C-alpha cells in the first residue's frame, strides 16, 4: 500500500472511529462511581462460620455471588461486588442512602435453623418455659424474677413477663454462664456450629455483652473495624452442642418489638431443619393482611418438618387432660422456633388440636409476626431465597457519599478537565502554530474516542479516574510535542517538509513508545495491586495512553503526511520552525554539582521535617471515621461536640468547613474508627438537635486492617513500579542506564515525602496512586534525554560522555520543558477548578512533575555521565580531548576539533595505543566535566606509560603537541575576533 493510500486509510479509519464514538457518547450513559453520584461502599472481611476453620477462595467467590444476588433484589442499579485481597469483599452500591438496610441485606450471614423449642431449653429455662400452658413451678419462677430485677429489668412490664414465662434470662451473661456449664458435644455433625464460641462481657455488673460469638478468643479483643476492646472483661466459652440465642418480646399486634430489650436463652444445638431444607421463600400476607414469609420444603425437609411438628403436637396432646377447647389447646401447644443468625425470628405454636399428626411439609410453612414492615419481610424472603453465606462477613470499612457532594465533584471534575484541555490546545497552537492545530484536532479525536470507550467498556468514572483522564490529555499532547520538536529540528537542518515530517515521526516514535510503555506498565501495576478506588485511575490512564498512541501518532502522521506537499506547509514559519530556534548552550554537566547541592539541601530539609513532623496520613492508612455533615440550624464546633459526646461519641476533631453547595453550616467530624451503629447514632443525634439538610450526610470509616492493606498495596506497587521501570530501561537501553533512573525515582519519592511532611498535607491512598502514576510519567523526561544520548553516542565517536550528554540535553531541553508544561497546565487546572479530592491528586502530581523534570535533567543524566565516564573507552577519549584542549575538556564537543581528533586517531592507529587504567583518571569530583588534568603541561598524563614502543609513541605525542599548540593559537585568535 502506498504512503498516500495508507494515510487516507488511517484518516478514514480515525474519522470513522470519531463518528462511532460520537454516537456511543450520545446514546450511552456514563457509568459514574460512588464518589460522583453518591451511594454506599462497604468492605467486608470474611471469617469462618464455625463449621469450617478457614476462609477459602471458593468461599469468597460463593459469597460474592450470593451478595450480588442479594443486591439485585435490593434494586440497586449498577452495583459492584469485587474481591479485595485474599479474604475481603468490597461492595459499591450507587444511590443507596439507607446504610442500615443495605448492611443487613448484604452482610448478614443468614444462617437459618429451625428448632423444636421446648426440648432444647436447658435447666431453669426448661422448668419455666418447657411446659406451655402449665403454671411454672414457684421456685424457679421466683428465682427468675429475682434475676430479672437484679438485672434492672422491670418484671411487671408485659414484655418482661412474656419473656420470663418463656424461661428467658434477662442478660446474655446469665444465659452464657448456663450454656458454659453444659457438656461439650464432640464432633457434632448435626449442630449448627461444631466448635466452641467465645463471648466477652463487661467486668462490672450487669456484665453487658461486649463481643461475641467469636470462634477465637483473641478476636474478642479487637472489633471487626479494629477498635480495641477492654482486656479485663469476662470471657465465657459456650461449648459445641449449645447455642446462645436472643429473642425480642412481641407487641400487642404480635410483632417483634425490637425497641425493647431482648431476653436470652441457652439452647441445646439440635436443629430440626436448616435453611438448606427450604424452597421458594417469598413474601406474602397472613390472614390479617400482615406481612409474612412463606416457603416450601425440599423432600427431606418435608419429612423432617412433618416429624418435628408431629413430635411437638404429640407433646402438646400429652399435656392435655381429656378434651380441651381450642383456646386451651393453643395454650398447651409447643413451639417451633425459626432462628436466623442466633436471633429468634418467630416461635409459632403447633396446635395439636388442628394438626394432631403435625403439619404436612408439602403445604410449606410461613414465618409470621416478626416483621416491622413489608420491606423487612421482603428482605428476609430474599435472603432465604438466595441462601446463607458460607462465611461470616465483618464490616471493616464503610463509606457513604451524599449525592449532592457527588454531583458537585462531577461538575468540578468536568470543568477542570475542559479547562485543562483548552489550555493545552491554546499552548500547542500558540507555540507550534499549524502543528499545534493538528495536535488539537488529534486531542479532540482523542477526547471523543476515549470517552466513548469509557461508556462502552464500561469504565466506572470516578474522581481519581477524572484525574487520570486529565493526565492522559497531557500524555497525548506530549507525544505530539516529542514529534513536532523533532520535525522542527529536521526542518531547520534543511530537510524538505515531507522528509522532515517522515524523519520526525521515524525518530520520535521509539521515544514515544518507550515513554508510553513505562506509563502503561505503571498503570498496569497500579491496576493489579491497588485498592478499588485507585483501580479506576489506573485503568483510565492505561486506556488513555493506548488511545493517545493512535490519535497523537498514527492519526497526526497521516494528517500531516497528506498535507505535507500542500501550500499550507511550504514555509517553516507555519510550523514555528522559522529562524534558528532556541539553542541551549549551557554546561549542564559542569553545573550539575550545584544542582546536586540544591537537591541535597532540599532532601536534608525534608529528612529533618520527616523526622520531626512525620507524615499526615489520612484515615485510609491510619483508620478512623470521617463524617461531613450539613446542618440546618446554625451552630458551632463546641455545640456539635457536646451533642456527640452526649451520645457517647468522644475523642473527635470537629471543624467547620466551607462548602457553599451544602450551605453555611457544614462540619467535618474526624474520630477514631466508629462502628456502623455509632455512625448512625451520630447522624440521629445531629438530626434531632440541628437537623440535617437533604443529602447532607457523608461518612467514611476505615478499619486498621483495611488501612494496613492499603499501605501494603501502596508499598508493593511502588517497589514493583521501580523494578519494572528499571528492568525496562535496562532492556531498552543498557543496564547502566537503569541505575540513574532508579536514583532519580528515589529522589522524586523522597522529595515528595519531604514536601508532604513540610506542608502537613494529608497523604491518602489517592495521593499515593497519583504520585505513583506521575512517577511513571516523570520518567518520560528521563527517557527523552536518554533516548537522545543513545542516539548521539554513535554520532559522536570521539566526544567525552559528558559532552554527549550536554549536547543531548541541549537538543531535548525544549521538548522536556514543553511536555512538562503541557501536563502542568492540566494539573494546574485540576488544582484551581477541581474539588478537594481532585486538588489532592493535583498536588501530588504537581510535586511529582516538578521533581521528576528536575531529577531527569539534573540528577539522572549527570549520574549516568559520571558513571559512564569511568569506562576505559571514555577515559581514553577524555584524556585525548584534554591533551588537545590544553588539559581542558570543553562542555561541548566542537565539530571541527572532533574532526581533527579523528585525524589524530588515524595517526595513532599507526602507532601503538597507550593503555589507560581507569584508576589513573584525574578528577576533582564525580561529575566534573571542565577540568584540567594533573599533568596538563606535558599532555601525557599517567596514560603515557610505555607499552613496548616508546619511541613511536613519543614521536606521535610530540607531533600532536605541536598541532595542539597551533590549534590553541587559532582558537584564541578566533575568540578574539568574536567568532566561535
Amino acid at each position, binding site marked *: 500500500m502506498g504512503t498516500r493510500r495508507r494515510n487516507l486509510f488511517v484518516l478514514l479509519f480515525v474519522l470513522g472511529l470519531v463518528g462511532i464514538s460520537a454516537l456511543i457518547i450520545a446514546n450511552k450513559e456514563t457509568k459514574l462511581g460512588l464518589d460522583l453520584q453518591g451511594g454506599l461502599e462497604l468492605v467486608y472481611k470474611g471469617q469462618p462460620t464455625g463449621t469450617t476453620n478457614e476462609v477459602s477462595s471458593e468461599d469468597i467467590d460463593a459469597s460474592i455471588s450470593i451478595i450480588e444476588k442479594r443486591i439485585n433484589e435490593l434494586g440497586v442499579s449498577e452495583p459492584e461486588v469485587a474481591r479485595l485481597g485474599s479474604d475481603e469483599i468490597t461492595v459499591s452500591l450507587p444511590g443507596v442512602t439507607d446504610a442500615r438496610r443495605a448492611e443487613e441485606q448484604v452482610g448478614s450471614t443468614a444462617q437459618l435453623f429451625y428448632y423444636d423449642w421446648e426440648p432444647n431449653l436447658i435447666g431453669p429455662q426448661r422448668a419455666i418455659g418447657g411446659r406451655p400452658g402449665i403454671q411454672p413451678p414457684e421456685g424457679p419462677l421466683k428465682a427468675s424474677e429475682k434475676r430479672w430485677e437484679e438485672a434492672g429489668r422491670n418484671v411487671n412490664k408485659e414484655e418482661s413477663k412474656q419473656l420470663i414465662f418463656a424461661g428467658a434470662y434477662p442478660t446474655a451473661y446469665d444465659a452464657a454462664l448456663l450454656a458454659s456449664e453444659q457438656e461439650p458435644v464432640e464432633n457434632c455433625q448435626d449442630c449448627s456450629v461444631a466448635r466452641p464460641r467465645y463471648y466477652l462481657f463487661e467486668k462490672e455488673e450487669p456484665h453487658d455483652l461486649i463481643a461475641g460469638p467469636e470462634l477465637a478468643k483473641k478476636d474478642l479483643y479487637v472489633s471487626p473495624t479494629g477498635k480495641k476492646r477492654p482486656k479485663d472483661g469476662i470471657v465465657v466459652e459456650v461449648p459445641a452442642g449449645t447455642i446462645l440465642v436472643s429473642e425480642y418480646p412481641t407487641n400487642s399486634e404480635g410483632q417483634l418489638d425490637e425497641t425493647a430489650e431482648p431476653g436470652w436463652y441457652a439452647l441445646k444445638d439440635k436443629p430440626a431443619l436448616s435453611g438448606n431444607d427450604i424452597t421458594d421463600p417469598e413474601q406474602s400476607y397472613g390472614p390479617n393482611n400482615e406481612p409474612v414469609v412463606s416457603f416450601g420444603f425440599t423432600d427431606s425437609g418435608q419429612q423432617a418438618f412433618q416429624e418435628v411438628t408431629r413430635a411437638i403436637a404429640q407433646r402438646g396432646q400429652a399435656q392435655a387432660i381429656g378434651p380441651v377447647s381450642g383456646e386451651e389447646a393453643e395454650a398447651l401447644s409447643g413451639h417451633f422456633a425459626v432462628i436466623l443468625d442466633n436471633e429468634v425470628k418467630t416461635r409459632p405454636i403447633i396446635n395439636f388440636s388442628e394438626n394432631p399428626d403435625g403439619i404436612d411439609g408439602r403445604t410449606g410453612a410461613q414465618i409470621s409476626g416478626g416483621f416491622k414492615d413489608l420491606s423487612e419481610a421482603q428482605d428476609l424472603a430474599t435472603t432465604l431465597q438466595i441462601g446463607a453465606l458460607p462465611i461470616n462477613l465483618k464490616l471493616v470499612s464503610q463509606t457513604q457519599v451524599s449525592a449532592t457532594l457527588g454531583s458537585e465533584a462531577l461538575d468540578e471534575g468536568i470543568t477542570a478537565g475542559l479547562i485543562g484541555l483548552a489550555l493545552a490546545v491554546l499552548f500547542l497552537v500558540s507555540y507550534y502554530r499549524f502543528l499545534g492545530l493538528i495536535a488539537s484536532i488529534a486531542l479532540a479525536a482523542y477526547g471523543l474516542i476515549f470517552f466513548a470507550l469509557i461508556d462502552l467498556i464500561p469504565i466506572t468514572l470516578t474522581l481519581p479516574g477524572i484525574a487520570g483522564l486529565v493526565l492522559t490529555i497531557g500524555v497525548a499532547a506530549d507525544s505530539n510535542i516529542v514529534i513536532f520538536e523533532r520535525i522542527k529540528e529536521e526542518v531547520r537542518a534543511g530537510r524538505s517538509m515531507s522528509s522532515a515530517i517522515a524523519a520526525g515521526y521515524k525518530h520520535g516514535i521509539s521515544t514515544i513508545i518507550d515513554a508510553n510503555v513505562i506509563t502503561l506498565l505503571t498503570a498496569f501495576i497500579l491496576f493489579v495491586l491497588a485498592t478499588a478506588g485507585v483501580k479506576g485511575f489506573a485503568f483510565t490512564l492505561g486506556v488513555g495512553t493506548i488511545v493517545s498512541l493512535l490519535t497523537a501518532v498514527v492519526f497526526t502522521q497521516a494528517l500531516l503526511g497528506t498535507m505535507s506537499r500542500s501550500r499550507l506547509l511550504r514555509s517553516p514559519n507555519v510550523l514555528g520552525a522559522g529562524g534558528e530556534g532556541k539553542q541551549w548552550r549551557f554546561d549542564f554537566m559542569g553545573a550539575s554539582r550545584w544542582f546536586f547541592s540544591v*537537591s541535597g*539541601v532540599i532532601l536534608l530539609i525534608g529528612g529533618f521535617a520527616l523526622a*520531626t513532623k512525620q507524615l499526615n496520613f489520612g484515615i485510609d492508612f491510619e483508620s478512623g471515621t470521617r463524617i461531613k455533615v450539613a446542618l440546618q440550624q446554625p451552630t458551632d464546633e463546641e455545640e456539635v461536640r457536646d451533642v456527640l459526646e452526649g451520645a457517647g461519641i468522644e475523642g473527635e476533631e470537629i471543624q467547620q468547613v466551607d462548602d457553599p453547595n451544602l450551605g453555611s453550616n457544614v462540619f467535618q467530624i474526624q474520630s477514631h474508627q466508629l462502628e456502623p451503629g455509632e455512625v448512625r447514632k451520630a447522624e440521629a443525634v445531629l438530626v434531632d438537635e440541628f437537623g440535617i439538610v437533604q443529602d447532607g450526610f457523608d461518612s467514611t470509616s476505615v478499619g486498621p486492617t483495611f488501612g494496613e492493606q492499603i499501605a501494603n498495596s501502596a508499598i508493593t506497587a511502588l517497589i514493583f513500579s521501580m523494578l519494572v521501570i528499571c528492568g525496562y530501561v535496562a532492556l531498552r537501553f543498557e543496564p547502566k542506564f537503569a541505575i540513574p533512573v532508579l536514583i532519580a525515582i*528515589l529522589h522524586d519519592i*523522597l522529595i515528595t515525602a519531604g514536601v508532604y511532611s513540610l506542608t502537613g498535607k494529608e497523604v491518602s491512598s489517592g495521593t499515593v496512586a497519583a504520585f505513583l502514576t506521575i512517577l511513571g510519567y516523570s520518567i518520560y523526561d528521563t527517557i527523552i534525554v536518554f533516548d537522545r544520548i543513545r542516539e548521539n553516542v554513535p554520532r559522536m565517536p570521539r566526544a567525552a560522555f559528558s559532552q554527549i550528554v550536554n549536547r543531548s540535553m541541549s537538543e531535548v531541553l525544549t521538548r522536556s520543558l514543553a511536555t512538562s508544561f503541557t501536563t502542568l497546565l492540566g494539573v494546574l487546572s485540576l488544582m484551581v477548578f477541581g474539588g478537594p479530592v481532585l486538588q489532592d491528586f493535583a498536588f501530588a502530581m504537581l510535586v511529582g512533575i516538578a521533581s521528576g523534570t528536575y531529577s531527569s535533567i539534573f540528577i539522572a543524566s549527570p549520574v549516568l555521565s559520571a558513571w559512564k565516564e569511568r569506562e576505559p573507552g571514555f577515559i581514553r577519549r577524555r584524556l585525548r580531548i584534554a591533551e588537545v584542549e590544553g588539559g581542558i575538556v570543553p562542555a561541548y564537543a566542537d565539530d571541527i576539533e572532533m574532526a581533527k581528533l579523528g585525524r589524530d586517531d588515524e595517526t595513532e592507529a599507526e602507532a601503538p595505543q597507550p593503555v589507560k587504567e581507569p584508576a589513573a583518571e584525574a*578528577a576533582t569530583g564525580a561529575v566534573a566535566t571542565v577540568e584540567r588534568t594533573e599533568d596538563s603541561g606535558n599532555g601525557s598524563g599517567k596514560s603515557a606509560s610505555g607499552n613496548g614502543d616508546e619511541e613511536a609513541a613519543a614521536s606521535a605525542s610530540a607531533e600532536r603537541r605541536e598541532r595542539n599548540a597551533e590549534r590553541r593559537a587559532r582558537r584564541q585568535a578566533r575568540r578574539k575576533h568574536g567568532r566561535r
Partner: protein
Amino acid sequence: MALLVFFMMGLALWHFTVFIPDRFWQGIIGAFIGAVLGAVIFGWIIQEASGKSLGDTDLSTALIAIPGTAIGLAVVYAIGVRSEERAD
C-alpha cells in the same frame, strides 16, 4: 518511618559527594550505595540500641543518619582507593 528518614538523609548527603575526588569504588554509584546503606544500617543499630521503635522519629533520628552516611562513604572510598592502588 525511621528507616525512611535514614534513607532520605543518606541520599541527601550523597548529593554532596560530587565535591569529593571520585575515588569511590564504582564511582558515584558506589558512593550512593555506601551512603544509603551506611545511613540505614548505622541508624537502625543505634535506634534499636537506644530502645526506640522504628516507628518513632525525632530530630535525633535524622542526626544519627549523618555519622552512618559518613561511615558508609568512608568504607566505599577506602575500597576504591585500595583497588586503585592494587591496579597500579
